[in-house]
């Protein structure tokens, strides 16, 4: 028996011409459908996302073909990916049929769909179809029956589900009907390689050969038109994400995470700063909206949305798309609303989870830049006061700048201006300098350094806020002013500053990454990794003392800098037993203090810090450890306002370590 099947069985080669005409028509519609969108993408400002091509293709392979980002959320991700692979195999199978029948066989009389390869081909396609059908069923149950909270179902979803189901089902029916005539009974050995088709064939066994042939003819055309309809529908429905998401992986931001465009403040011709309309954003920002599939993974993880604030990162991205396509001249910030824009903590949870690599945070900051730099707007009167305080005293509290170094009195710390020779420059930051609770962290860090024989220098009253909160609130001018002053101050000490260490992840991100744009090239490290290295190198020894704790990954150490393991290792070395919160590591839940929100009153919705404190409480660990002054401040507040003082305390990693220094006398006890 021949191990193959007759291509165009029953319908005959007469279908080839009309088939290709319709197929090309569908492809033409597809191209036109996408082409007409490109003029909207072009509304945005230019941005080069065509550099580092190998890396970009690699991202496409990992995320489109292997679906790594989609699979980050296990269950719906698996359904999607298995469906994608199943449907992809069917698509490749169809291409192979076309390639043999209408090219190799036609021109060179070469047939490869036969023998063992045909058996493999037949089985692979049959199972791929089954997998696709089952996964589609799973997705259908999720969308229309389980209906996860926040999942919005629109016309496209009904259409796409119906279309895909119809394509898969008619495919199996056609196969079954053909097999009922050509394989069942006459070629049972081959039928074994189409188990699902076999079941369908069994179902049609009762019909006569002529009935089967008529049914096959009709269904063949139905299946064909559904398939070309699918291709034509792609640019006009949510299906467009097949291509826009793939392209979005290619167009990924390859700069270090958290990189913001540094505005050229010397450019006298600039009249607009930040984004007032969609055309002030980049083309990629508009394209992002076209890649969005409304999967709401970002919204689920947004600390603002989770606490009943009006911000949904997904909706912001979609609003940009809606305006770009319908009213590009409209005021973007008014459409999105300032309440939404000021609610963002820039925690990056949205961006980290997005299956299609959308960049949410910088869009929000660009809009904030418009509010701040063009309209002189603030997130609240308390923020206005804090910004004024930065301008006068270089700290948000409005405390005298000259008292900035006073926390270090009595400690073994050198003032840089006194000409000390030091191993590290400790950039203390505003909170460790002025906030009583965080001064403990600064003192702890100095004690750790002393114990390891590391000579510490500080800038004292010469130090100013690194500018991070101002920058994230959109005030690039104030950020650059303070940043330039800090950089000039540090550069005066020349080679004497070999390394900068911060205890604040916000200072760390800003000095290590953002200051590079302004000319600071000295290595910068966060105290956590610095301490981890001192331990590893044996320069620091601890006397471990058992304690139970839960660890909060601050956004700017975790998601922004991928520092997850070192803090856990340090705390384990100190004798800690960790109970993880549900939301930890890259999925950590913001304390509420990022994005300049530390300066603002939380007037909308519930309090983010209380939400996080309750998550910590749920682990039953009595100690919530973080390593960020904003987190510590938010948690100290949250523990009080949520009434958890009896069950939970907040501490900083440096305090834990400082209390367990091998040389420390037993009288000193840390948290």
């Amino acid at each position: 028996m021949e191990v193959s099947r007759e291509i165009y069985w029953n319908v005959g080669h007469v279908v080839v011409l009309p088939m290709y005409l319709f197929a090309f028509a569908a492809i033409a519609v597809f191209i036109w459908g996408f082409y007409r969108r490109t003029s909207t993408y072009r509304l945005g400002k230019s941005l080069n996302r065509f550099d580092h091509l190998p890396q970009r293709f690699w991202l496409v392979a990992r995320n489109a073909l292997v679906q790594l980002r989609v699979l980050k959320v296990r269950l719906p991700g698996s359904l999607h990916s298995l469906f994608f692979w199943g449907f992809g195999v069917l698509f490749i199978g169809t291409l192979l049929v076309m390639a043999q029948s209408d090219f190799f066989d036609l021109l060179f009389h070469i047939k490869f769909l036969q023998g063992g390869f045909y058996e493999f081909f037949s089985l692979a396609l049959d199972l791929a179809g089954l997998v696709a059908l089952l996964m589609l069923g799973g997705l259908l149950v999720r969308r229309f029956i389980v209906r996860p909270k926040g999942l919005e179902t629109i016309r496209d979803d009904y259409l796409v589900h119906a279309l895909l189901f119809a394509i898969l089902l008619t495919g199996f029916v056609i196969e079954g009907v053909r097999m009922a005539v050509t394989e069942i009974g006459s070629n049972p050995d081959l039928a074994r390689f189409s188990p699902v088709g076999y079941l369908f064939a069994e179902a049609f066994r009762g019909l006569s050969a002529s009935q089967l042939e008529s049914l096959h003819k009709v269904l063949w055309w139905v299946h064909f038109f559904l398939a070309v309809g699918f291709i034509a529908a792609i640019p006009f429905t949510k299906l467009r994400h097949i291509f826009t998401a793939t392209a979005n992986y290619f167009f990924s931001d390859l700069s270090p995470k958290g990189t913001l465009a540094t505005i050229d403040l010397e450019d006298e011709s600039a009249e607009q700063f930040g984004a007032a309309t969609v055309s002030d954003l980049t083309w990629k920002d508009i394209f992002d909206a076209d890649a969005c599939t409304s999967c709401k993974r970002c919204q689920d993880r947004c600390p603002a949305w989770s606490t009943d604030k009006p911000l949904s990162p997904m909706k912001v991205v979609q609003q940009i798309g809606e305006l770009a396509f319908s009213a590009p001249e409209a005021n973007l910030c008014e459409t999105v609303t300032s309440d939404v824009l000021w609610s963002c903590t820039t925690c990056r949870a949205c961006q980290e989870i997005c299956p299609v690599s959308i960049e949410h945070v910088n869009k929000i900051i660009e809009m904030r830049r418009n509010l701040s730099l063009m309209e002189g707007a603030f997130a609240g009167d308390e923020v206005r006061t804090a910004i004024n305080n930065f301008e006068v005293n270089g700290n948000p509290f409005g405390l005298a700048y000259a008292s900035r170094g006073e926390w270090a009195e009595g400690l073994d710390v050198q003032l840089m201006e006194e000409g000390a020779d030091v191993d590290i420059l400790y950039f203390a930051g505003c909170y460790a300098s002025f906030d009583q609770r965080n001064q403990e962290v600064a003192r702890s860090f100095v004690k750790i350094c002393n114990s390891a024989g590391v000579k510490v220098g500080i800038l004292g009253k010469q130090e100013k806020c690194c500018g991070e909160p101002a920058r994230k609130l959109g005030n690039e001018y104030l950020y650059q002013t303070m940043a330039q002053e800090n950089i000039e101050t540090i550069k005066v000490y020349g080679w004497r500053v070999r390394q900068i260490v911060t205890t604040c992840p916000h200072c760390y991100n800003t000095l290590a990454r953002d200051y590079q744009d302004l000319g600071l090239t000295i290595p910068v490290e966060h105290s956590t990794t610095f301490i981890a290295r001192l331990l590893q190198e044996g320069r620091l020894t601890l006397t471990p003392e058992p304690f139970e704790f839960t660890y909060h990954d601050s956004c700017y150490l975790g998601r922004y800098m991928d520092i997850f393991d070192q803090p856990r290792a340090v705390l384990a070395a100190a004798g800690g037993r960790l109970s993880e919160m549900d939301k930890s590591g890259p999925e950590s839940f913001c304390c509420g203090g990022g994005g300049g929100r530390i300066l603002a009153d939380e007037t909308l919705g519930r309090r983010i810090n209380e939400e996080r404190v309750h998550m910590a409480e749920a682990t039953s660990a009595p100690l919530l450890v973080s390593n960020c002054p904003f987190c510590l401040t938010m948690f100290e507040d949250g523990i009080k306002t949520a009434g958890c003082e009896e069950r939970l305390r907040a501490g900083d990693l440096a305090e834990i370590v400082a209390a367990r220094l091998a040389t420390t006398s037993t009288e000193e006890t840390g948290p």
Partner: protein
Amino acid sequence: MKILVCIKQVPDMESRFKPDGAGLWFSEQDLAFRVNEYDEYAVEEAVQLREQLGDAVDLTVLSIGPDRVVEALKKVLAMGCDRAVHVQDPQAALKDPWQIAAIIAAFARDKGFELIFTGMQSQDRGSAQVGVALAEQLGIPSVTTIVAFDYADGAVTVKRELEGGIKGVVKLSAPALLTCQSGLNVPRYPTLPNIMKAKRKELLTVPVAELLHEEALATTASFHPPAKKGGGIVLEGDVAEMADQLIAILKERTTVLR
């Protein structure tokens, strides 16, 4: 219409003040400076009037002091003033209010300013005299501590703060001088385009000797911190211990528990 706003650059009040070498004023070491709060209300009101009347208004801002006051002038230029005058005087802090007013009057006399806005007082010296003394020397009417302002066709209507929360309404016609109290407005935050524009605005520097021809009416005899009195005590630590400490203090130093 020409408007003049007078501003002073003052130290941030959170700073720690120490007498200077001569013991006549505070030392400027380790001080951060800012625009006097009340003068910001004056600037904002003038800028709002400028917005109301359009380009017919020419808004001059003046400040007396050492070179550091240029920072303050730049800030208010960015808020919307048209031109700035820096009366250069490193010894401004040693002049009395009458002399300061005389300097401004000498500058303003032949300029035809229809309205002059000042703060109701400075945050550092707090004499609240420069505005009224300036009006006196120019021979124009003045109203102090205004909390609302309206201008229409040369007629000025202001609300001023009286004791006990009572407000009084005063009507007068330009030229006039007004000293501004908090509550009048919320001073705007300069936008970046305006900060950049301000860099190109006219900034005239006049040495104080060209304008000052008056002797001081009052001189500062001494500047010194008040004698230290017993401060408050903050108890910290364990609640039980703090309670014991409190009882001990009440027993030792008061008659409450006797």
